[in-house]
């Protein structure tokens, strides 16, 4: 009897707390955790993990048929921009602007700087083979 009552309490608690929480419509994965780790440790390992998590969030959102959460494509694009992968950066910025028109203004700004970077990058790669990521 006591056990059943306890079960009921647990059940009701979950019902009430679910009623209070906002509705789930995005998949964020471990975004906060990996972002926290990269802010805290600021090392290559944490950065790579966070980038992989961003890629995973995009992939999982598509699998689950959910919209990609705001800011994710833009952030991944920014990482690509810093890693001298301007083409991919531009693609992601365009995707963000398409998903969230509110971001268009900033995305256009970032696409501009990606374009500028690409033209200087191609000059560099013409003269040498350097295509590695430059440290931040």
């Amino acid at each position, binding site marked *: *009897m*006591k056990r059943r*009552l*306890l079960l*009921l*309490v*647990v059940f*009701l*608690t979950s019902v*009430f*707390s679910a*009623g*209070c*929480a*906002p*509705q*789930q*419509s*995005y998949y*964020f994965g471990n*975004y*906060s*955790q990996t*972002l*926290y780790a*990269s*802010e*805290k440790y600021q090392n290559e390992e944490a950065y790579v993990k966070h980038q992989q998590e961003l890629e995973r969030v995009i992939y999982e959102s598509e699998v689950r048929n959910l919209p990609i*959460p*705001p*800011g*994710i494509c*833009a*952030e991944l694009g*920014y990482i690509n921009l810093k890693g001298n992968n301007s083409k991919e950066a531009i693609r992601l910025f365009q995707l963000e602007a398409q998903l*969230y028109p*509110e*971001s*268009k*203004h*900033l995305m256009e*700004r970032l696409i501009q700087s990606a374009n500028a970077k690409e033209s200087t990058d191609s000059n560099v790669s013409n003269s040498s083979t350097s295509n590695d990521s430059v440290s931040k």
Partner: protein
Amino acid sequence: MKKFAYLLFGILIIALMSACAPAMNTKLSEFPMMYQEQPLSILILPPMNESTAADAKEYYSTTIQEPLAFYGYYTFPYPVTADILKMEGIYDTELLVNLPLAKFKEYFGADAVLFTTIKKWDLSYMILASTLTVSIDCQLKSTTSDQTLWEYTGTVVVDLSGGNTGGGVGGLIAKAIVTAISTAMADYVPYARQANYRALSSLPYGKYHAQHNKDQQVQFIDQTPEETKTDAEPLTK
């Protein structure tokens, strides 16, 4: 014993229900500017940390985006905007407090910016229950009118021991062990996120939420302490 259990059950239900809907304030009466201006995009500024916890800033800033997105807003990616602000020479949000915010509209296209002051970020380790106590002061300000659209001043206490409510003496011991383990792991990110969720509970829903523009009459617990309330009033109206 059985009677006692029923009584406990009754109290629990009442406590839970009142936590969800104590008739205090409606979102519309408290934050009319939110419904007038209808901000869609929010730029999160680096928090101002007045607490003694050095890493409170990181905990807060890395866990605020997610709840804001779930509330239906477009949030600019914090790591990106923080980086851009740094490149523009803005390291401290303190410097921006009384300045016109039109620049944020111009540069980022943001409808509103979120100022946050972390007053307290305390982890207390106790034998039976560890808690995270977060006191914050949030202001969502319009980049068009410089007005405060929404604000929150309050304290959120998050139970770190997992929320298990029952179990007698054996349960308590188990709980103590769980608490010890979970504080040892020191992964407070989910709790920080939970604290942020609770702080946002009076925020009207944004464009990407099904309840957008339907929550004017939703009531919430007014956590603003009485003594500061009179000071805060002119800002909201």
